[in-house]
């Protein structure tokens, strides 16, 4: 039997009297690679924030690994890469190694200390993402793509079972974007990491994701990419020519 990683039931969120998410019910099983797509303002990022307890719900419930979100404490099982985390301050004094090491705090109790044995995990993760040569550089001195890889390393350093990424490729050039998708696809295939990835690249993500979740304040579609491509609802939404283009872009 598939193990549930995320269960959202009738999840609703509103900001200043405006409904942003309307009764969303979704189950994500272990090992799933879910591409979350939808137009601007459809609530994709709000959905992610709600799952992680970063915004309050106006209705419904969420559980992570079978535990209600409000009482979930095993954050070492979750890695998160938020949208637009580019360092505004080029003088921020944390090195790449210090930044990635902060990802280990989620598995520790107070007082949270980074120990010498933790450095091996940090080095391994830096090498995995190809940023080990940058370990002593300040995070603010890196390019957008390099920072993205460093923050992804931070999200991965604890070997999370669930990795949530919010538009991780927005600032990347097409070549780097393809490499990025390849990298996280490898994580899903080789480590069985459950992935939830918010993106505008509907056609590209379809080549990697096992499931597509199309949101526009509510769930318009949730199923495999193949079903997505043959869905009459999606055809009605995009129009057949656009649906054809999206489904054959990858």
């Amino acid at each position: 039997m598939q193990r549930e990683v995320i269960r959202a039931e009738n999840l609703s969120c509103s900001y200043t009297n405006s409904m942003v998410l309307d009764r969303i019910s979704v189950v994500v099983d272990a090992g799933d690679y879910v591409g979350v797509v939808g137009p601007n303002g459809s609530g994709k990022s709000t959905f992610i924030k709600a799952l992680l307890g970063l915004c309050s719900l106006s209705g419904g419930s969420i559980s992570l690994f079978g535990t209600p979100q409000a009482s979930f404490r095993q954050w070492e099982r979750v890695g998160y890469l938020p949208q637009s985390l580019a360092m505004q301050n080029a003088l921020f004094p944390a090195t790449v190694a210090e930044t990635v090491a902060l990802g280990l705090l989620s598995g520790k109790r107070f007082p949270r200390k980074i120990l010498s044995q933790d450095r091996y995990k940090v080095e391994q993760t830096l090498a995995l993402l190809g940023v080990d040569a940058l370990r002593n550089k300040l995070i603010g001195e890196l390019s957008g793509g390099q920072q993205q890889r460093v923050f992804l390393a931070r999200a991965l350093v604890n070997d999370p079972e669930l990795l949530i990424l919010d538009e991780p490729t927005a600032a990347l050039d097409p070549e780097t974007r393809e490499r990025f998708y390849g990298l996280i696809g490898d994580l899903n295939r080789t480590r069985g990491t459950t992935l939830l990835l918010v993106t505008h690249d509907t056609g590209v993500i379809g080549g990697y994701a096992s499931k597509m979740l199309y949101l526009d304040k509510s769930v318009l579609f949730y199923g495999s990419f193949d079903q997505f491509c043959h869905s009459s609802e999606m055809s009605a939404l995009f129009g057949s020519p656009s649906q054809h283009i999206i489904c054959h872009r990858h």
Partner: protein
Amino acid sequence: MQEVPLMEIFVYGFVQRAMLAGSLISVLCSVLGVFLVLRRMSLIGDGLAHVTFGSAAMALAMKLYSASSLLISIPVVLLSSLGILKLMEKGRLSGDAAIGIVSAAGIAAGIILASIGGGYNVDLLSYLFGNILSITFEEVCIAVVLFVVVMVMMLLFYNDLVAVTLSEELAKVSGVPTRLISSVLVCLTALSVVLAMKLVGIMLITALLVIPAASALQVARSFKICVLLAGLQGVVSVLAGIVISFQFNLPTSASVVVLNLVLFMVACLVRRLRVTGSNS
């Protein structure tokens, strides 16, 4: 003032007390200043200094002087620091607006209480410009105790503070209690500001919080080094500032701040040379 040979300065008890207390206070302010500057909360020191002025006027009206006035100042400033956070959260205000409100309330309360208490006196005026050379033995003991408390808290919460400073969102998803950490930071700042009033006064407290941190940010190559450099600059500027003010009969608080500014310019120069060196 009659010129005193440099080495003889250190013989005087009031100089020793000033150097000890001043060093401890400046380290606290400098180290906390790194987190405040990076979180764009630099002006909180100014705001809490104004509240300290109000609490000092309250203490004087209650006939509590010197070390005893801390019995009023510490709880009032602690509550005000938490009030700033609450205003930001519940009142949906930005940090500078919340600080401005609390700051204005503090100064206004101080002015009213001072007028009720019979006008401004030397004690109250010393809060404006500081008077480290008049620090008493009891105040030094309090400075030592508060220094230990603040530094122990900083060490215990260090990684949490760095995580929240880097990204509050990421820290929350790492299980770091971000609200608690923010409260810890402003409370530690409140304690340090109350102590620092004696050193540099309301007018210059922001300098002690901001300038060492700003200098360290120019040259540090890691967060740990940044914190250490800020603390070191704090100590050097206080010790040298006291000596210079004594030698040349200058106001101590202003001498400390001017030295900090000189060190900041040196740090900028070092950074400039480093960038030029790496480009050539």
